[in-house]
Every structure is written in structure tokens, then in C-alpha cells.
């Protein structure tokens, strides 16, 4: 179905395919988790602790997807896989940032209780 522009680059069939399928699998899981996280997070009254949990799961799936080696494949489907990998990296960074903000906000809410929160989460990374 994915007819390339040239028929010469025909290396996208073969042992590489399982990697691409695995990448899609992790994309799919990550998309489901982070979509759920966003849906909760976008509501003012959303349960932020639930959003945090979903972000964490989504980030874990993104990590697995990004860890796959798609650097050396030839052909259009591999190029797409590399672009997808870049987007997954972007979203992993953004989701992590959001996660840190939520965790910080949540730790602020429970300040009255005795909770052990590392300084790094409370204050954030010190500017260098």
C-alpha cells in the first residue's frame, strides 16, 4: 500500500518491519494514556492525581517507542518512523514538564500533611 516514489528503495520490507510495528504499538499506547491525561488535565476540576498517573504511563510508552532504533532503515516508511520518533521525543519532554508542574502543584496542596517531597520537585531545577 505504501508505494514509494521510486521502486529502487525497497528495503522497507523485511526484518525491519517488526520494529516499525513495535514503534506504532508504543505510539498507540502513549497516545491513549496522554489523551486521557490531557482530558482530565484540561478540566479545571479534573483529578490532577489521575492526570499525573496517566502522564506517567504515557511517558513510559513514549520512552519505549523512542528507544527503538530506526536510524538506519532505508525508504519512506523508515523516514516516517524517524519523524514519528522526533515527535515522540518532543511530546515526552512536554509531558514531563507538565507532569512536574502538576506534581509541584499537588505537593503544594498537601503541604499541611507530612509528605516527603524532594526539594527538586518543590523548587524545581535551579537555574544555571
Amino acid at each position, binding site marked *: 500500500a505504501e508505494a514509494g516514489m521510486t521502486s529502487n528503495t525497497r528495503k522497507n520490507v523485511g526484518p525491519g518491519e517488526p520494529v516499525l510495528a513495535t514503534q506504532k504499538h508504543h505510539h*498507540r499506547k502513549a*497516545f491513549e494514556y496522554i489523551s486521557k491525561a*490531557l482530558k482530565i488535565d484540561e478540566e479545571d476540576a479534573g483529578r490532577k492525581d489521575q492526570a499525573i498517573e496517566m502522564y506517567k504511563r504515557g511517558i513510559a510508552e513514549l520512552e519505549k517507542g523512542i528507544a527503538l532504533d530506526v536510524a538506519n532503515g532505508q525508504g519512506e516508511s523508515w523516514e*516516517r518512523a524517524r519523524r514519528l520518533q522526533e515527535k515522540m521525543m518532543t511530546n515526552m519532554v512536554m509531558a514531563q514538564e*507538565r507532569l512536574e508542574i502538576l506534581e509541584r502543584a499537588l505537593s503544594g496542596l498537601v503541604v499541611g500533611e507530612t509528605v516527603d517531597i524532594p526539594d527538586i520537585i518543590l523548587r524545581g531545577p535551579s537555574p544555571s
Partner: protein
Amino acid sequence: NSSTLTTPQNQVDSLMQEVADEAGLELNLDLPSAQSNTLGTSTATASSEQDELSQRLAKLRQM
């Protein structure tokens, strides 16, 4: 073959539609993402889904 000439047009049409459906020629963009399975997801779809996440994450960052 004379039988082809006597086949009603509407039967031909419905057969054509059937073949098109089977070949996935119809782009069904409204398909809910929850229903599309992993293998059915094209990389192009995956790519635009990641874009969607980026946009929504960026929006939250501005708040």
C-alpha cells in the same frame, strides 16, 4: 460474454462500492481512534496524533 451486458447497473454499482470498500479506498477520517488497532494505524495517522498531543500540551503550558 453476453451476461455482462444484461447485468443491472445498480448491481454493478454496489459491487464497485464493495470492492472499493475492501480495498480501503474510502478515507474514513471520522473513525474513532479508540477503535483503530495498532496494526491498522498508519504512520501518517500516528504522526498527526502526536501533533495533536503537542498542541494540547503547548496550550496547557500557556495557562
